[in-house]
């Protein structure tokens, strides 16, 4: 059994993990990345379409290209990378138990960055009735089959859900000669980015059916058809609109869930609104020295935003680990920080961070998403009735992650006993 010791251990070698590790390393920490797959890059490796890097690198890259830029930086650094290595336990005292084909590893870490990403919601989560045949799979798995394994999941495809992976796969499968019959979305609006609706569906004449869902899965042992139907404003199926569509494959693109089973092992509390850890402005969880970033924290729209967030987490983790080391050697007591809650208000689904250390020392960014599309609305940040930030009037979509930057001077009158900071997006009538 191997015993290892690092200032910072990053769990997950996707875009979040690599960016966090690089920043932590840059700050002078000894760093390890533990990656369960056989290469770094995470899900970017199967995202062979372009559209990555526009904001971070100011150029349009494919997923593997974006990943490669970071992989090369990691290779050029003295970060230790453990591939094909799976963390099976994470204790609150930062002891990490991992496994690979050389045996069991036990790692001690000054700080930990959680960067395990997310998983796709499955058929079971939305309880689609019908038979249970081959031919029903998540869009991400289909992407793996087509882009990496070079195999086709089927010939006639129906896609349920208008998440970005589903939209990307509609185009991808069409280019590979499969027939994509349509994308069906329960909500009255698309869940994916506007540019993906445009580039992946409209340009290929693939119909998008809003307020429509799959109501039955038909065929056994292989999928033969699905029944679809329109729903009313309460999501109740409208019987007379039921229609059977012959197909051999149903792809599901119905949402992503941060993968926090390991985080929970270590005692990290989750935010029920994101299914990710509850973090402060440093992306610190409520377990000392454990930080989170990327899709394990909340599901992002663009990888560029993941990178920025991860750099922040990596920096914070390195600072924490190095300060703790110094504090131990100087016998300094740990300082107790006061925090105030940040909570989502009107029309807002969640915020990251969900708490703020006061008094704030540096500018903070609050990320959030709206729950429904709003044509004309403005973000308002307030405690009780006291408004201290008001944004411009603009359109909001749930598919887009929004950010507001606040300066310490805007926040320094806050104190611990205050009501939570509330982030609302208020509709503005013309």
């Amino acid at each position, binding site marked *: 059994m191997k015993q290892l010791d690092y200032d910072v251990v990053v769990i997950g070698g996707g875009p979040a993990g690599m960016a966090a590790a690089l920043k932590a390393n840059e700050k002078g920490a000894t760093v390890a990345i533990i990656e369960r797959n056989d290469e770094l890059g995470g899900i970017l490796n199967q995202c062979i379409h372009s559209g990555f890097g526009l904001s971070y690198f100011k150029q349009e890259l494919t997923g593997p290209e974006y990943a490669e830029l970071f992989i090369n930086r990691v290779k050029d650094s003295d970060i230790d990378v453990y591939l094909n290595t799976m963390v099976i336990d994470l204790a609150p005292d930062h002891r990490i138990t991992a496994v*690979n084909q050389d045996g069991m590893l036990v790692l001690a870490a000054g700080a930990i960055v959680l960067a395990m990403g997310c998983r*796709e919601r499955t058929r079971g989560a939305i309880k689609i009735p019908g038979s249970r045949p081959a031919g029903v*799979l998540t869009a991400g798995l289909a992407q793996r089959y087509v882009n990496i394994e070079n*195999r086709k999941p089927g010939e006639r495809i129906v896609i349920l859900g208008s998440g970005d992976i589903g939209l990307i796969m509609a185009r991808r499968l069409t280019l590979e000669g499969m027939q994509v019959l349509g994308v069906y979305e329960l909500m009255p609006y698309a869940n994916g980015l506007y540019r993906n609706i445009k580039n992946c569906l409209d340009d290929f004449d693939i119909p998008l059916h809003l307020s429509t869902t799959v109501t039955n899965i038909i065929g*056994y*042992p292989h999928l033969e058809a699905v029944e679809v139907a329109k729903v009313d404003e309460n999501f109740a199926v409208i019987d007379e609109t039921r229609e059977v569509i012959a197909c051999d494959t149903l792809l599901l693109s119905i949402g992503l869930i941060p993968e926090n089973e390991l985080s929970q092992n270590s005692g990290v509390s989750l935010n029920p609104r994101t299914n990710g850890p509850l973090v402060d402005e440093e992306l610190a969880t409520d377990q000392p020295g454990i930080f989170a970033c990327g899709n394990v924290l909340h599901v992002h729209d663009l990888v560029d935003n993941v990178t920025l967030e991860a750099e922040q987490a990596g920096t914070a983790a390195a600072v924490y680990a190095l300060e703790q080391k110094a504090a131990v050697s100087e016998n300094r007591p740990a300082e107790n920080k006061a925090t105030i809650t940040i909570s989502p208000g009107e029309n807002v689904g969640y915020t990251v961070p969900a708490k703020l250390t006061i008094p704030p020392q540096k500018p903070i960014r609050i990320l959030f998403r709206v729950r429904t599309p709003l044509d004309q609305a403005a973000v308002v940040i307030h405690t009780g009735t006291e408004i201290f930030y008001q944004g411009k009037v603009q359109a909001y979509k749930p598919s887009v992650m929004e950010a507001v930057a606040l300066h310490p001077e805007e926040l320094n009158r806050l104190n611990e006993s205050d009501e939570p900071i509330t982030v609302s997006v208020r509709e503005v009538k013309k």
Partner: protein
Amino acid sequence: MNYYDVIIIGGGITGTAIAHELSKYKLTVALLERGSDIGIGATKGNGGVVHPGYDPTPGSLKAKINVCGANRYPQLARDLNFGIINPGIFVIGFSDADEAMLKHKLEFGIKNGVKDLAIIDAGQMRNREPQLATTARHALYAPTATVVDPFEVAIAFAENAKANGVEILTSQPVTAIKKRTDGNFLLNTPDQQFTCTYIVNAAGNHADDVARLAGIAEYQMKPRHGDLLVLDKDMVNKPKTVMFPCPGPDTKGIACIPTVHGNTIVGSTATMLDDKEAVNNYAPGIQALIDGVHKILPELDAAKIIRTFAGLRPVVLDNNNDFYIAESPTVKGFIHAAGIQSPGVASAPAIAELVRDLLDNAGLEMVPKADYNPYREKLTVFTELSLAEQDALINEHPAYGRIVCRCETVTEGEIIAAIHGAIPAHTLDAIKRRTRAGMGRCQGGFCQYKVIAILARELGLSADAICLEDAGSQLLCGAVKGGAK
């Protein structure tokens, strides 16, 4: 031609229990299963409760068999190395009428010989289950009740039977049965012929169809369908006890069931159907499950549902809802083990003993084997090992250091062992049942392609040939353009 003393038709928990029982005797026995694996009919569409036996009407066949079968489980679990837990059962009453019903059940249970039954009050219930609905007033408590994983039990029975000489043949649907002039039966499957002196019909929902092949029309069957759902292991405030509401006439009601592997199952609805293949989920059924379990556990989080599934209980019509276990009066040597609805899992070991006795009475000489081995080794389960054991195992077999299923922590070593196991696993679902790869919260989203690749490599097949379960359930259909490899 392949001659056997006894051929068992059907490889569910009933058929495999019978195979296990008969393997103790100097007999030649084969089991023919129509599906690609054993335990994939009613056995896999099941909540896994080993009902202790307070339900059946005293004096019925079910009553005799249920208690005896349930009592066999703890020892069987030790000998055959399958998982078992002892959560006990609450049958919960919400009203005075329910209390009368519970007392009635208590009386049944005592008459049937169930041990340690008691009526308990709300306080006693809440001590064990703090999340219980405040409307719950009293319960019949059956502390001896156990829960197993029914397909694991069927696999364990089959593997032990095989080790003791029984032939276990899958993908062998019986298509014709003839009684020859020499008194023996001739059986056909699409690619083989068998002869035997005795047939045991354990064909589940198809027992009447199999009987008809032999010219027997003693009974008709219909399936009683049930929807079920599975909740994530990481659910907070998981129930520790199997909890049923007071039962209805045809069903024990919607229960929550802690499983051997730490999930919670909610099941089952009960609807008579005509279609014996309709193992579908129905939207009203799923809703009924959620509503039903909320009557017991109002706070249960439906967002923790990771899968829905369904099962068909084989019901012999006009038979007082009882099992039908007897030698055919018209075709000698043809034994029915039919209509094995609930409590089929609990009853299986005792059904096997009854079938043994029926064969004995029918003239089959039962001589115990001196070299019978009652024990079965199970496949290595990586997560059950200590850190040092895991490390040592990986040093010897590096495949145990490669995690394939992240949700359930299943290694490549375990999957390879299952593929080459005593009853080999050649499909994705067969691997899932034996190793739990794909059983977790991502439902195979991350590991399915890896399991397919391992199956293809180990079996020398193309990935395109790998099936989910039954023939025709291939998961992939050829190379992408320019991707041929």
